[in-house]
């Protein structure tokens, strides 16, 4: 988590950029390696339910995480492993959730991407697309209500999710309330198998911003530098009180919708276009070209990340599964108001 230092000297600015890139790159790398581990655990039948990867979307996602402060609000979506890590989620939290550990933040009750720690400003998404945006609005509204200043809330959605009524209501609400919301749209060209042209008919999704009276930003989602710049700027503008910001990134999902999906529907032309570049590779090139890191350092970081992932997997696999007999089978917190009626007592 870095803050934008606005009036730094050129040298200071270069240092800052270097730090930012290095930090971002390392989270991207961790996210990618973690994703690969999840994929292999899934193939080995160790993960129940679905696995949804972020491959190709790490640059955009990480830019969110590194642009935010611990005191901000973040509601990630399915393809935000990099942003989650950068915002402060541990690899342990992630693996505990995916492997259903009773000790994880979701205690085996919810899985995979549906994790978070709302009290830490890190919201746990529900599956219904669009539904998290107004929840972020609510946290920002509440902080303003309580007199807390300098807060930004970021949440993400896919191109497909922009067609939901929830998206519209929430963006409009944020605009009416002038909330410091940044909505990041990852336009990865497809909603599951459905291409953009069956999802919307505007020339560009940023065209929606003016209809809400909010500020649009476009970015090449495969380019880490661009993402850091644009997302960082959007976050800074929101923080300065300029109201909601809409960031639309163009990129391609370099994996299936979930690990069950071979993504055979993706147009090879898109894959071979600049959209299809692997943002991790692009980031590496940036670091190498600018001589901010060399291959040896990168190998060290990779090995370090792998080691943490492997030891964490080993640890989580030894953790207890949730025990249905020890489970509190109630969905409400008020003890007195639990349904006492018990079917058959079986």
């Amino acid at each position, binding site marked *: 988590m870095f803050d934008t230092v606005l009036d730094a000297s050129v040298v200071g600015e270069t240092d800052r950029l270097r730090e930012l890139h290095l930090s971002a790159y390392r989270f991207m790398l961790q996210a990618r390696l973690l994703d690969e581990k999840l994929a292999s655990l899934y193939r080995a039948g160790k993960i129940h339910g679905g696995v949804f990867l972020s491959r190709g979307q790490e640059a955009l996602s990480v830019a969110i995480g590194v642009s935010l402060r611990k005191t901000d609000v973040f509601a990630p979506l399915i393809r935000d492993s990099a942003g989650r890590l950068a915002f402060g989620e541990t690899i342990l939290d992630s693996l505990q959730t995916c492997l259903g550990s009773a000790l994880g933040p979701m205690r085996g009750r919810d899985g995979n991407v549906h994790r978070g720690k709302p009290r830490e400003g890190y919201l746990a998404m529900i599956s*219904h697309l669009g539904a998290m945006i107004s929840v972020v609005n609510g*946290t920002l509204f509440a902080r303003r*209500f309580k007199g807390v200043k300098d807060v930004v809330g970021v949440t993400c959605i896919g191109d497909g999710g922009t067609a939901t009524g929830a998206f519209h209501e929430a963006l409009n609400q944020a605009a009416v309330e002038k909330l410091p919301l940044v909505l990041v749209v990852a336009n990865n060209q497809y909603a599951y198998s459905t291409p953009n042209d069956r999802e919307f008919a505007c020339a560009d999704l940023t065209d929606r911003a003016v209809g809400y009276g909010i500020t649009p930003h476009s970015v090449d989602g495969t380019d880490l530098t661009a993402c850091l710049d644009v997302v960082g700027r959007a976050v800074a503008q929101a923080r300065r009180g300029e109201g909601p910001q809409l960031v639309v990134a163009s990129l391609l999902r370099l994996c299936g919708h979930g690990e069950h999906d071979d993504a055979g529907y993706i147009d090879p032309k898109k894959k071979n276009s600049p959209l299809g570049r692997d943002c991790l590779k692009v980031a590496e090139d940036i670091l190498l070209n600018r001589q901010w890191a060399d291959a040896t350092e990168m190998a060290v970081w990779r090995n370090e990340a792998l080691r943490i992932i492997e030891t964490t997997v080993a640890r989580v696999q030894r953790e207890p599964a949730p025990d249905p007999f020890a489970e509190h089978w109630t969905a409400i917190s008020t003890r007195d108001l639990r349904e006492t009626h018990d079917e058959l007592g079986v």
Partner: protein
Amino acid sequence: MSITYLEAIREAQAVALRDDPRVFIYGQDVAAFGGAFKATKNLAREFPGRVFDAPISEDAMIGMAVGAAVEGLRPIVEMQFADFSTAGFNQIVNQAATLFWRTKIPCSLTVRLPFGGTSGSGPFHSQSLETIYAHYPGLIVMTPATVEDAYSMLIAAVAIDDPVIFCEHKFLYYHLKAEALPSEALPVGKARIAREGRDLTIVAYSAMVHEALAAAAELAPEGWQIEVVDLRTVKPLDTDTVMASVARTGRLLCVGEAWPWGGVTAEVIARVASEGFGLLDVPPQRLNAKDTPIPYHPNLWAAHRPTARAIAVAARKMLRQ
């Protein structure tokens, strides 16, 4: 001095706003205008910065409230009519209702639903939706029948750490009056014996309590002593009080204004049949609205919902068995 059911709801919100700085109100036309029914009249003026007009965005209204609850506030959301809550349904049942179970963060949030039939209101301004909310885990569903309960249960709802669907009956808004607001209240979650009797138990809630009481009054000169149980909250449902009443009377008639399939009346009868089978001297019966949308025309409307007369007819049948 007398106070209506609607005024009690306003007063309860005033108390909540006064006593707890975490409380705020969000809904269409609730601020300067005081709400479509005037349930928030003057509150924006009395509590500046605590009452906010919402756009016509029920989904985002609930979502916003959930976010605020995550941050420890206690929003009261007014739906202009219960019927429109279907547009915020997803956020209620999937976001608010699951939050605590998933994340350990209690979701203190009150959704006020002006509900139920009034003559001439038609299919989209008359619905009783307690059943669809009660079906989902994670929600408390209140259905106050009296001015006193409207007041004290709404104060309680706001204080509760879980999402409460507060079903306030529009028919009672102006019709029902009390001398004064109560200083004490039954605990939330407990049913109330609205009238004592020993021949038959009528279980009802909200506006139907008054139809049941009228039916009981109609049957009294015939020598029948009807006990009326007011459920007060339909989830959790106070099976014990119902069962104790049926133990006294041996006869159970359950009345609801909602549609017949799978509602409060089915739940009550299923519980009594399972757990109190031996208490029943005659088959338990129920009376609900008809299984069609709620009609606009007063003649049709009066026939669509259970009335004191229909309840009395049903009760007589059971009493003669």
